């Protein structure tokens, strides 16, 4: 399976202490993506200029001459780069590093097992990303391996995957952290590249099969901070029998920092950050319509 990172001691990705596995690859292209390095399913090289000491090891290692170190310092020109990652292996400082690691489910499980003493009754593994269900067989196998060993399982998903996997997912995951991005489908298509309707249907089906869920709703000022969107959330909520609560995630522009490491333009949008008042309003709207709302990390 392809992962970007396995983060231990996460406390906001489901109940208790969790080990979060970030899958690489996602079918959506949300303009506000917080973890842009997880979008592409292939290898990418991240470069942090602040950590570069200009040693030239990368230039020596690169078969296509993408790195140049001269009097003007180190320049990384990605045009010819094939993401073979030889430079990252050679870089002594960690200024160059690969976004993706290929791991077997067994290898990931071994990392997850490390924090068993901290999981208690509640904690466990959370698959996130990226879209874990874009690698459905690997994701499901890993979930089942964890479950068999008494480790709690959660999956954060946008819902965009082959609906044939819904029953298996509902079975293998103790909790689904389900992203709900926008009730306006035209806007959903425009901002993420796909329609939100099948995604919603997948959630409703998982719920019908008894899957426990949390609705994770990103709020972007001037994009979806409007009553119609809150209504859509409430409507979805009313169709779910096993949804524990809805979580409001105010947009923040930090994903831009990672775009910079990927050699792309920092596209963080300050103007999308919802104000506390807008958040409050969203909360009130939803509460008034009977939705149980919880702030992330509160």
């Amino acid at each position, binding site marked *: 399976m392809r992962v970007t990172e396995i983060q231990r001691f996460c406390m906001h990705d489901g109940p208790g202490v969790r080990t979060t596995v970030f899958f690489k690859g996602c079918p959506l292209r949300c303009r506000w993506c*917080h973890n842009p390095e997880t979008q592409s399913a292939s290898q990418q090289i991240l470069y942090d200029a*602040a950590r570069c000491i200009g040693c030239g090891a990368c230039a020596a290692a690169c078969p296509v001459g993408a790195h140049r170190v001269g009097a003007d310092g180190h320049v990384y020109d990605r045009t010819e780069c094939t993401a073979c990652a030889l430079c990252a292996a050679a870089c*002594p*400082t960690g200024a160059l590093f690969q976004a993706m690691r290929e791991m077997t489910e067994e290898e990931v499980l071994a990392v997850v097992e*490390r924090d068993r*003493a901290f999981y208690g009754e509640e904690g466990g593994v959370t698959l996130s990303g990226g879209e874990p269900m874009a690698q459905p067989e690997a994701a499901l196998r890993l979930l089942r391996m964890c479950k068999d060993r008494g480790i709690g399982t959660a999956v954060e998903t946008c819902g965009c995957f082959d609906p044939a996997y819904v029953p298996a997912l509902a079975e293998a995951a103790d909790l689904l952290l389900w992203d709900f991005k926008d009730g306006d489908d035209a806007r959903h298509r425009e901002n993420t590249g796909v329609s939100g309707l099948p995604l919603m249907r997948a959630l409703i089906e998982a719920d019908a099969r008894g899957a426990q869920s949390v609705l994770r709703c990103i709020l972007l000022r001037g994009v979806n901070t409007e009553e119609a969107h809150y209504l859509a959330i409430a409507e979805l909520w009313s169709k779910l029998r096993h949804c524990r609560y809805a979580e409001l995630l105010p947009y*923040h522009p930090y*994903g831009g*920092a990672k775009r910079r490491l990927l050699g792309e333009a920092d596209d963080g949008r300050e103007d999308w950050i919802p104000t506390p008042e807008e958040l409050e309003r969203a909360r009130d709207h939803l509460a008034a319509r009977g939705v149980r709302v919880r702030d*992330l990390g509160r």
Partner: protein
Amino acid sequence: MTFDAPNGLERPVRLSEATRAFAWDSLRHKYGQDTRKVMDVSLDDAEGFDEMTPLERYDAAVARIAETAPIRLCEGEKLSGAATLGRAIGHQVPAVRNGAAICSSVSHLTLDFGVVLKKGLRGLRAEAQEALARYTGTEREPFARSCVSCLESFSVWHRRYLEALEGRPEFADNLAVLRRVPEEPARNFREALQSVWFTFAFVRLCGNWPGIGRLDVLLGPYLEADLAAGVLTMDEARELLAHFFIKGCEWICGGNYGSGDAQHYQNILLGGIDEDGRDVVNAVTWLTLDVLEELGISDFPTTVRLSRKTDPALLRRVAEVMRFGGGILAVYNEDLVIEALTKYGYELREARAFGNDGCWEVQVPGATCFQYIPFDALGILQHQTLRDYAEDVDFPDFESLYARFKADLTARVTEICRSYEAAFWYADVPGGDWGWKPQMPCTVVSLFERDCIARGLSYFEGGAVYNVRSPHLGGLADTADSLYAIKKAVFDDRKLTLREFFTVLRNNWEGEEPLRQYMLHHYEYYGCDNEEADAVAARILDDFADACDGMNGRCGFRFPAGVSTFGRQLEWSKGRLAAPHGRHAGEVLAANASPTPGTDLRGATGIIRSYCRADLRRMVTGAALDIRLLPSDVRGEDGLAALVALLRGFVALGGYFMQPDVADAAVLLAAQKDPASYQTLSVRVSGWNARFVTLNKEWQDMVIAQYAKEGR
């Protein structure tokens, strides 16, 4: 009046306005500054001083202190008695002759305050008289006489307070209580609290820095009885207890005094089991946590004993208080500590009663003469084993290098133990005729150390039940990392030869930055949950424990091992050379049993796992782990659950002592200035995660601002 939380969380308010105001003044140096107005008492006019023995001089000093130290009554105080001489804050008996101090004082011990509660001073006096009668005409007579004299001085000081309180209607309650205690045994919670406080204050007034010990064990039964009888409410009890903590801040002076003025080893322990294995948690446990949570007083470093059986409600409460930050609450894993002590030869009942020494080193409180002897293991490796990386130093393989280090380590431990034997004993021949050498006077603390009075021997001269000298290994992480780095780069991966490596280190990495970076980033060191690296640390500790065991039982000393640096990593940094794991000469390296700053790539759980890989039962007097957390880590219900999980895992994996701290934007600012030390600091905002140091300045500023905001 807001009592700051280092992470900006809002503290609950349960105490009265008056009590909070008292705390406010005390924490903001009012009484500390007052204490410094009179630094000491003078014995310039003492007759026959020059002819006196050191012990007689000591007694004269204590008598003079008792007779003339300023009396301080603070407005509204519910407990009276104050250690009002400034020199005591500096760990000295605050008495001088011709401007020079007369003798030194004692710390790193926890007294048996229970004896005062149960027998009163009256009972102690009777014991001292009895001892004097028994030892008159023997070489123990002077000490027995000194005990009688110091108890008399204590009574003099006590009477002065009674006189001062007389005719002050606002202090009528204090007067009534002090008329009874500490002279007589305590009958209720307030008497018990006042008795402990007054005794503590007198011992401190004489310059000593004792720990308090198991506060809930001492006071809980009195409070539970009062509550059951309906003569006191929880709220009233909390107020009283708060005054104990506030009074304990009377040495806070403000400003910088070396390692700070925030604590004088006045440690408190909560929770755990008693000698019979029963859970001791009681109303005092809960109220103490309330007070710490509300006032954030760090002057009584408080540690909670946890075990696999700890009540989940207590665990949660500990986490709640802990997340206010400041490292105010720390925890012991009592399962492991008790096992460590019994394995080391302590009776189970004594082991279960364990406390600490005023710092976190474990001892049987009120019965142990304790000293620890810190040394820098990294210094041994660099200066002895590797002879400052001299050109002619070479080893054919890692094992022969390690064997050399082990021999040097063992030699150092032996030397430490022998020097303490030589300082305290007349012989150092095993099986020979051992006898105590005279030591500096210390009668005041001896009064409250089990068996000193009865034996007619002082705390430093064999009076206490246990005599412990604990070598403390410092620089654990960096010694292990250095060895591991050499093992990997030179012997396993053959990246360079040992001699080449030493040349680089001799030159402090000059011109070799890429190699240094490689050593920093290519290997995962102690603290990363890497079995291979952790095994080196575990091996060092095992060999260290063997070395200590080898010296044990030769005389009346026990030589248990421990791990600490406290703040010494700072002073040690000056003499340290470049280290193989990518460190420059003079860098400030790891503290206690914690990993070196910047090597903890796997977060808090990874650190705990690395630390727990060593057999910490062999570190009999302790091995401390510091853990840094961010406010965002512990925010809300999720965060509480996470903190609880950390504590539970620490116990389950066999940790010894852990001090989690929750810090705020200041940590991020520090991380911005010194990114190398904060490599793993992840920031987490609504599902996004990144390592803080990988952000550029602009972005970092933004996140800092965000944390600063969220902190409000």
